[in-house]
């Protein structure tokens, strides 16, 4: 099970925070702070793991990757494989990169909804459902089209969605 996904920049500002169990916002903020406090003290070229049980409770592991100005952090439990989750971060970032053509922090800042859409295609309720960035892209594009269609002064919404779903 994936417990949480966080993206934060090197100043500790959260750019994406997704917890797969309900947590009050104050608790979320505290967790992100504590993760950042550990992250910012770590050198480059060391392993991508952090001891997470002191922050997230028993049976939790944490891997992160550092890209340019951003940390991508995944928290999960013993039913995931650490290296596989590292690969998953790679998939996530690759997908973002394809979506935004050379993704940078600003893209993530300004595309709140889209980032969530992408992540939701990869992780569903804490379970990893899709590991191919091509498949994710396909779904995300469909959703964007559908959204645009529903927003364009909806004269024929029903038929549009009906056509799509066939």
């Amino acid at each position, binding site marked *: *099970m994936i417990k949480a996904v966080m993206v934060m920049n090197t100043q500790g500002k*959260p*750019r*994406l*925070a*997704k917890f*797969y169990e*309900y947590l009050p*916002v*104050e608790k*979320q*903020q505290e967790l992100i702070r504590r993760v950042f406090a550990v992250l910012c003290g*770590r*050198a480059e*070229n*060391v*392993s*991508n*793991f*952090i*001891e997470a049980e002191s922050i997230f409770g028993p049976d939790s592991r944490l891997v992160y990757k550092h890209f340019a100005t951003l940390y991508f952090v995944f928290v999960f439990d*013993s*039913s995931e*494989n*650490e*290296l*596989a989750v*590292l*690969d998953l971060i790679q998939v996530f970032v690759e997908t973002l990169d394809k979506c935004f053509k050379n993704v940078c922090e600003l893209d993530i*800042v*300004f595309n*709140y*909804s889209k980032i*969530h*859409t992408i992540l*939701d295609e990869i992780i*569903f*309720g*804490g*379970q*990893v*459902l*899709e*590991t191919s960035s091509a*498949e994710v892209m396909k*779904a995300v594009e*469909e*959703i964007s089209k*559908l*959204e645009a*269609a*529903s*927003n364009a002064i*909806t004269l024929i*919404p029903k038929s549009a*969605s*009906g056509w*799509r*779903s*066939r």
Partner: protein
Amino acid sequence: MSGPSLMDSLFQRTLEDLIKGLRQQLIGEQAFISKALEEIRKEIKSTDLSTKSTALLKLSYLSSLHFHDMSFATFHALEVLSSPRFSHKRIAYHAISISFHDSTPVLLLITNHLRKDLSSTNEFEVSLSLQCLSRIANVDLARDLTPEIFTLLSSNKLYVRKKAVAVVLRVFEKYPESVRVCFKRLVENLENSDPQVLSAVVGVFCELASKDPISYLPLAPEFYKILVDSKNNWVLIKVLKIFAKLAPLEPRLAKRVVEPICDHMRRTGAKSLVFECVRTVVTSLIENDSAVRLAVGKVREFLVDEDPNLKYLGLQALSIVAPKHLWAVSENKEFVIKSLSDADPNIKIESLRLVMALVSEHNVAEISRVLVNYALKSDPDFCNEILGSILSTCSRNVYEIIVDFDWYVSLLGEMSRIPHCQKGEEIENQLIDIGMRVKDVRPELVCVSRDLLIDPALLGNSFLHRLLSAAAWVSGEYVEYSRNPLELMEALLQPRTSLLPPSITAIYIQSAFKVLVFCLLTYLMQRGSTASSMFPDNLPSAVSASVSYESFDDLSVENVVDATDTHGPTCTSASITNESIVNLLNLVELALGPLLGSHDVEIQERARNVLGFVDLTKLDLLNSSVQEENDSERKGAEASKTIELMHGAFSKELGPVSSSAQGKICLPDGLMLKENLGDLEMICGDIDQPSSNSFSFGSPYEEKGGVSFSNLQIKENSRQSNESTSLLAEHRKRHGLYYLPSGKSEMISNDYPPANDPMLLGNINDNADDLVKLTEESLTPKRKPNHAKPRPVVVKLDEVDEKPESKEDSLSGAVHDVLFGSEDIVPTSSQSNLSDMPSSKRKGKEKQHTDSHVESKENLVDHGNPSSRRRKHHSHGKERRHRSPRKKNAEERKDNGQKLKEKSSHRHGMHKSGQRAEEPFNFSVQTPVIPDFLL
């Protein structure tokens, strides 16, 4: 507040505007956000769905990334959800999934929306509602939407089907009854050819099996097929995780899966899969030597890899193997030790753990030396990590691995001098503990303590204060081993002691007192001996003569003798002169005088004690030195009597006290042990005394009639120990506060101490048994006798442990039922034949027993007997899954009567079918249903 006008909605900020505004920060972030929130509160009340949804999106953003509460908008989110537009729905679902939880009041209003979207023809709408359900489903939602999910499980759109599969996990968890409906279809999906769906199903089973593996044993053939056939690493990893849980339950299965797992390990290039294979082997297939060898070989490849992640995981895998196959660590010893200086803290800690696993009686000195050197060089955190693990490893099981205590004590001294050392407290405990337990080490201990006390630099490090208090206590208590008590006195009274906290200063003063008494006594004896005869040989007899009437234990007298004999010229007797005594007394007065005005009562009182004692003796002593012999003999007699008295008070040895010692004391009549002492906490709470002091209570009294009394006691104990210790355990649980802290005497973990517990090393002269031990000790001079007996089993109260599993149990029960249904192994008679097969494990038989037991109760339950229902909690929980709905049925029937009749009767029917399915299930546990072709 009036609703927003048209103008408001026309010029509404979009999310993008909001983000831009936040980034410009014209008025500061907090001010900007509160302004935006104000706008949102207004806009969200709009009747225009576009305005409303934009407001909701902005609010979700602020909640998610700026952590503002959005619970006020739950109802508005529902309103947006009802919009026909896809984009609105998406915003609403997003908002709901981040803000709803089980106690959100409007949660149930969402059911119909979800139902509608779940049956939508648009796969993305279905996906949205599934996504939402996977986050917020509670019992009611899960129950009410089970039919829709059942339909979706066989949807021909793979996009929908994989999500329906995934949502089942949450639905099962919240509403175990749904297993009956959905499980079969879930299992069918295991044979799906589509990799995405397969990955989802295996993922769900991996989660389910991690909570309750035994229920999924019957599915082993399906998993096995996937393990052999699948080419997808994600799927393989999950299947391996499932087998890691299943294999320990069924030895035949373990044998069967070893081969394919090893194949994968040899063949695959994906590190993640290799690591998962390794982990599966070292956790669950540890008995299979060839597989373990292969895995350790792979681990070695990881260890030498460039990638720090692989190194780290390799070390982790080694530490899983270590308990069973220490050779795996020894083989890689060199690498492990090298990793101690790795740049990565994770790797360092992991390798430290492994190094500690290698420690044994023979190499402890060598390894500790290496580690202390590392500690000197490394950063503060890791340094303390190292020191902590040395301390805990060496003290494990009452210093089991330590042979040479002199070495260990000097190591403790060395460790406390490491600049980053923050382990003062732990070292303190061990110094005192060793002092009390191991008699032979005391001279060295005093020597180490002196070195610590005399170093003024250490007083400046507040982490070491606790340690210094131990050193002070040790050198006061065992001052007779000191080579130079005068020097010790100067160390104890040096000006920089003002840096110490009051509680520790108090210990310093007390120790100074003990040293002072010892010096004076030595001086008196010396004078006495020189007066009576010039031969130093007389000294011992003088000592024993002067103290014999005090009924000292012989030991301490012997100690004095030892000290004087062995240390020869540098020893106390030679160095104390009249002049030095005068200096000593002056020093005491000078140093303690100011403390009379201390604000701390403890300090004040103790200082006054010492000074009072000095006053009492000083005059006599000084006079006697100036006046002529005869006079001084007479006058000095008073002083020496006082001094001897004091010495007597201090010389009784203190031994470590077992936590169970209290249990050996018979309860006096009229003593209320169970009374609530909560009020005392307020009074005792702020007395922060190091417990070393607490040992001094009452020792002078025990001496009289010790032999007969303690023998009696022991006899009593052997009879009573069982009941008294259990009573005590209970008492201890309730009033833990009043027991000695466990750090003091490591033996406390013995809940059932043997009657002749070796705890009272100090009181050896009392018991005959202990004499035996004493000889043992002298045979192996440096080694404290170990427990001859194996460590007693710690009895656990199993009633307490079982509670928190209710849900899984009901889930697993449901799964069992359904699995049985799907496997079509129904006839009870044939099943019981199966259960007689030799392969059925003992465990299974026990189960059988409990099951039949439970079943007989089942009938009672049907008649609504609540007490039997409760008792069933302790047996296996499989039946529980019926119970709650059944109970609910009964209540519903009673309470709501006609209204719910239809529904409840429907459910009742379901329950009945469930019960029918249950009977075969009872046997399924004994012989896990894995078809023979597999095994």
